[in-house]
Structure formats: structure tokens, C-alpha cells
């Protein structure tokens, strides 16, 4: 029993961290643009494909196969996905910042279709699942008879440091201050001389790069990547951000942990829970929003006449 408990605890934290990283992207973008970037999950899930392609290209170009290339390829992928985010913002998403919320939602769902189809067509045999290696392997330590891999340690450390860096970035740097100002009130921020296009660019780069890391970790955790992983990644990350409270960073992390928690619980304790896990996740989402309509840590929206 204790073994099972620890094993599920490890699974929960790993998955929770990945969802939290995805949710942070949703929350950041919503905070600044007031737009739900529904294709964020798809953007994030391009990163495993870019990393695989980059690793192969590097291996061919240099001729020696080495695990170092994977690390380099991962860095390339994170940077590239950040740029993809910036380009998508410039070409599509920014145009919907003043549109009704539903229009932006529909447009970004369509954008998600485009991204998925592009992966499918551009990547060789993109329709098939592709194996994705564990970024790190080996056993770090043992707790109650359960072997905890280095991968889990990596996920936790990476998430903690990314969150710390993001907080430092938002609180301590001038650019972070501008992003916070723009998310507080875009018009007033502009009056204060903050160029909002730069803020959007920075926000999308940071959010997409963090999403890319989440995508890489997710593919590595599943051991495989598919062109349509982005749908579920997006839906779960979005749900995590919303039940945490859109625009709130601690909320996004909390939301990610809750979503992963219910998923792991359903898989462990409910018979046939693996196939019903989404039912439990989304029933929880409905339940949370029924009692906390602004999400758990969201600011209540006051409407003035």
C-alpha cells in the first residue's frame, strides 16, 4: 500500500508539474492580452518534433551520434517554439485582442488545427507516433521500495527553477514590470509610455518557451509524441489555468497540481479509471467553477455600471 502510495505520489508530482507549466502559459497570455490562446497546447507540443528533427540533423551534420546532441536539440526546440509563439501572436492572435472573447477562442481553436496539420505534413511520417527518449534516465533514489528516477527529479527541479525565474523576471526586471502593468490595464500602460507590442512579444516568447519545456517533458514522460497530443495538452492546461484563476501564477500551479491529482487518483482507485479519467477531471472543473466562478485564486470580477 505504501509502495503504491509513493508511486502515485511521484506520478502526481511529475504530471502536476507538467500541467502547471502549461497552465502558466495560458495564464500569462490571458493576463496580458485578455485572449484565450487555445492553441497554446499545440504550440507546446511542436517542441518534441522540433527537438527530434534538430537532434537528427545535428547527428547527420556532425556524423557522430551522441546524447549531447539531444540536449542541444532540446535547447534549440525551446528557443524555436518561443519564436513560433511570437510569430503566431504577430500574425494572428494579436488581431483578436479587442474582439469578443468567443471569436478569439474559435480563431485559436482553428489555429490549433492548422498547427497540428502542419506538423503532420511537414514532419516525415507525421501521422504516426514517434518515440521520444527520456531526457535523463537512471534511478536517483529509493523511497519505501519505490525507485524515483532522475527524470522525476529533473521535472521537479526544472519546474521549481522556472517558476522562480519567472517570478524574478516579472517582479525584478523592467520588462517584467511592463508586462505586469500591461496585464493590469493595457490602456493606462500605454499612456505611461509602455509599448504594448514589445510586451506582447516578450509575453508570447516566455509563455511559449515554458510551454515548449512542458511539451518536451510530457513527450519524455509518455515516451512518445504524436501530432494530436496538443488537443488534450491544451484542454488540460487551459482547465488548470481556469480553475486556478486566469491571470494568477500561483493559481496556474495550483490548478495544474489539482488536475494531475484527480487524474492520478481516478487511475489508481477507480476501477477502469484510466478510461474515465477525463470524466473525473472535467466534473471537477465544473464543480470548482460552480462554487468559485472566478477560479480558486482568481480575483473576483466586479462589474460596475
Amino acid at each position, binding site marked *: 500500500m505504501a509502495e503504491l502510495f509513493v508511486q502515485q505520489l511521484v506520478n502526481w508530482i511529475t504530471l502536476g508539474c507538467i500541467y502547471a507549466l502549461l497552465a502558466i502559459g495560458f495564464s500569462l497570455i490571458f493576463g496580458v492580452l485578455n485572449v484565450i490562446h487555445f492553441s497554446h497546447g499545440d504550440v507546446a507540443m511542436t517542441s518534441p518534433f522540433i527537438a527530434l528533427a534538430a537532434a537528427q540533423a545535428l547527428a547527420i551534420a556532425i556524423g557522430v551520434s551522441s546524447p549531447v546532441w539531444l540536449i542541444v536539440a532540446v535547447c534549440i526546440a525551446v528557443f524555436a517554439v518561443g519564436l513560433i509563439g511570437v510569430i503566431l501572436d504577430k500574425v494572428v492572435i494579436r488581431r483578436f485582442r479587442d474582439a469578443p472573447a468567443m471569436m478569439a477562442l474559435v480563431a485559436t481553436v482553428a489555429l490549433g488545427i492548422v498547427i497540428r496539420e502542419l506538423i503532420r505534413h511537414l514532419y516525415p511520417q507525421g501521422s504516426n507516433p514517434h518515440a521520444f527518449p527520456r531526457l535523463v534516465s537512471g534511478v536517483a533514489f529509493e523511497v519505501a521500495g519505490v525507485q524515483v528516477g532522475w527524470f522525476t527529479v529533473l521535472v521537479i527541479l526544472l519546474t521549481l527553477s522556472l517558476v522562480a525565474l519567472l517570478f524574478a523576471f516579472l517582479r525584478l526586471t523592467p520588462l517584467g514590470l511592463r508586462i505586469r502593468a500591461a496585464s493590469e490595464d493595457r490602456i493606462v500602460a500605454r499612456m505611461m509610455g509602455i509599448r504594448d507590442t514589445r510586451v506582447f512579444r516578450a509575453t508570447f516568447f516566455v509563455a511559449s518557451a515554458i510551454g515548449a519545456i512542458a511539451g518536451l517533458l510530457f513527450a519524455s514522460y509518455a515516451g512518445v509524441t504524436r501530432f494530436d497530443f496538443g488537443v488534450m495538452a491544451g484542454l488540460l492546461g487551459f482547465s488548470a489555468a481556469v480553475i486556478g484563476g486566469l491571470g494568477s501564477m500561483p493559481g496556474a500551479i495550483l490548478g495544474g497540481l489539482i488536475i494531475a491529482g484527480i487524474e492520478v487518483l481516478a487511475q489508481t482507485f477507480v476501477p477502469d479509471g484510466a478510461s474515465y479519467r477525463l*470524466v473525473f477531471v472535467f466534473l471537477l472543473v465544473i464543480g470548482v467553477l460552480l462554487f468559485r466562478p472566478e477560479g480558486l485564486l482568481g480575483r473576483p470580477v466586479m462589474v460596475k455600471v
Partner: protein
Amino acid sequence: MGARMSSEMPGFGLATVLAVGIQILGAAFLYLILKAEGGWQVIGLLALLAAGFYLIEKRPQITEYVTASFSRVPVVALVTAVIVVVLFPFAVGNNTYVLHLLIVAQLYAVLALALNFQLGSANIPNFATGASYGIGAYVSALLAINFGLSFWLTLPAAAIAATLFGFLIGIPSMRTRDTYLALVTIAFGVVVQQLLNNFDWTGGPNGLVGIPAPSLFGHSFADPLVVFGWKLPSQANFYYLSALLVVVAIITAHRLHSSRIGLAWNALRADEIAARAQGINVAWFKVLAFAVDAFLAAFAGTIYAFYVSYISPDNFTFLVSVTIMTMVIVGGMDNIFGVIVGAFLLTILPEKLRAFSDYRLLFFGIVIIGFLMIRPQGLFPQRIRSYGESR
């Protein structure tokens, strides 16, 4: 007022010609695009369509003039519409694929009209229309397969079940709003789809097979339809059935739009707090919008189930709900005609893009994004309510 009317209103003769001619032109265009094969034909017709919309965009008085002539001779316009709809299958003949497309397009038109009550009239997002559609289809199919109920009895049963579901989704809508409400409806949609996918008694991912064809006065809908010696394929039965449903949906939409309910929904859209201050029971009208949506969607679902005689959870995914939503936005919110055009366009377009084989979804996505950027108000934007005069 009188002076304006006389200068802008077309005369009786011209109005008749316009009302008849435009409908026949529209039907001919629909016929051509349905029959079109090969990339260039489709591209040519789409270019023609785009040019038409560009003209309307540049010269809004054209739309006004045409609408005016339609309301000048309502009876003529109506009779022409009925004749066009009734005769269309005869023109199509034995091409079952075209008939199939038309049936699906009509069912989607009903779904889009259903969603229009919420998204268009009251500006309430609903990503669960696909789920209501699925509930309608599954309830009627299960009743028909397990209890041998006839199609005509399952229709109201499915509608009642889906309406209850609509009320259920409506409850959280009293508290949540905007994006949060959108997520609640997405969540309901996913839950329903996942349950259908996992329950044993719904057939799981394999779905339900062998739904019996409905029959009317001894005429089975699986048999070809013979009218005055003309033999139409069996799909024609369902074509007329779904056309009837579209008519019911249009009448419902029109009546609701001109009633106090439609007015209350529009008030909600304009300003919720102001509506509340006017004494409008905001919560009730929101829930009612969900219920009406689910009610109509269930009808469409029932016809769909009996038409294809095979349903699976894949027919009712989140993406189906998004597609319906896109139809409403592309057509023009709160504009009955626009919504129907949107539904037809977005049903036929992906099928015709099959000429581009594997790339059609990509094209579809790009077209939608491009459309939302270029013309966010939809093809036929909502019209300002006119008070006083009945027509």
C-alpha cells in the same frame, strides 16, 4: 418615413423578379458547387462567392434593397423558396452524395440556429451543442434499438432528455461568465462524449449500429421515393425530413426573436446589469437559452442517427461543437439567414476541399482564421431591431 420608403422600396414587379431570381440564382450556385469536382472548379466558384461578398461589403445598399424586395412580396418569396427546396432533389437526381451533403448541411443549419439563440441572441458561449446533439442521437437510437420505439416517438423523448441536459448546463451559467462559462460548457461536452465512449450500453467507442429506418404511412424511409413516376433515391426522404426541421427551426427562431424572450436575450447581450435593472430575470433567460438550444439540437441528432443508422462518440466531439460555433460566427450572429448560409458553407467547403486530399483540414483552418480576421462581424451581420411595423 414615407419619403424614405418610396425612394428605397422597389416596385412590385421588380421586387417579384428580384425575390424569385435571387433564390433561383442561389439554388443554381448551390447546385454548381455541390456538383463541382476538381480543384479548379471549386476554386473558381469560391472566387465567385468571394467576389459576391466583396460587392455586398462595398455596397451595403444592395443587401438592403434585396431585403426590402423580399419583404415587399413575402408570399411570392415564400412560395418560390418552397418550390426551390421541394424541386432541388429532382434536379440533383440520382447523385446520392450531393443529397447526403445537403442533408448534413441542413442538420448543421438546425444546430447552428439552435446555438444562435445563445451565442447570437444572448452572447452566451456554449461549447456543448455537440453534446446535446449526441444526447439526442443516442437517446433516440437506444430507444429504437432496445425497445423498438418508432422514430416519431423517439423524437420527443430525445428532445426531452436533451432539454433536461440543457437545464443542467444552464445552472452553472447563472454564476460563471465569459471564459469561465465557456470552460464549463467545454467540460460538459467532454464529459458527455467521454461517457458515451466508455459506457457499455452505449456501445463504447464502437457506437450503436443498426438503427432501423423510420417509416411514415407505410412508406419506409429506406425505400426510394417515387413521386408522379419520378424515382428519387432513398436519401430524398431524409432530405425532405431535414428540410422540414430547418423550417421548424426558422419559424421557432423567428417567433422567439420577435417575442419578449428574444428581446430579453438581446437585452442580456447588450448589458446584463441593465437588463437586470429592467426587471428581466437574467438567470431564467440564460437557462432557457441553453434549454432551447439543446431541444433543437436533439431533433437534429435524432434525424442524424436514423439517417446514417450508425452513430459513434466520434460524431459528437468538442470539435463538432467548435464547428457549429464557427458556423454561427461566420454566418453572422443573430441573423437567421446568415447562420444558415454559414452552416451550408462550412459543411460543403471541407467536403469540396477533398480535391486537396490530405491538406483539406489545413485549408479549412486557414480559411476560418482568415475569415475571422477579415470579416469578424460575419457574412450577414445582425440587423438592428425594427419596432412598430410588423414587417
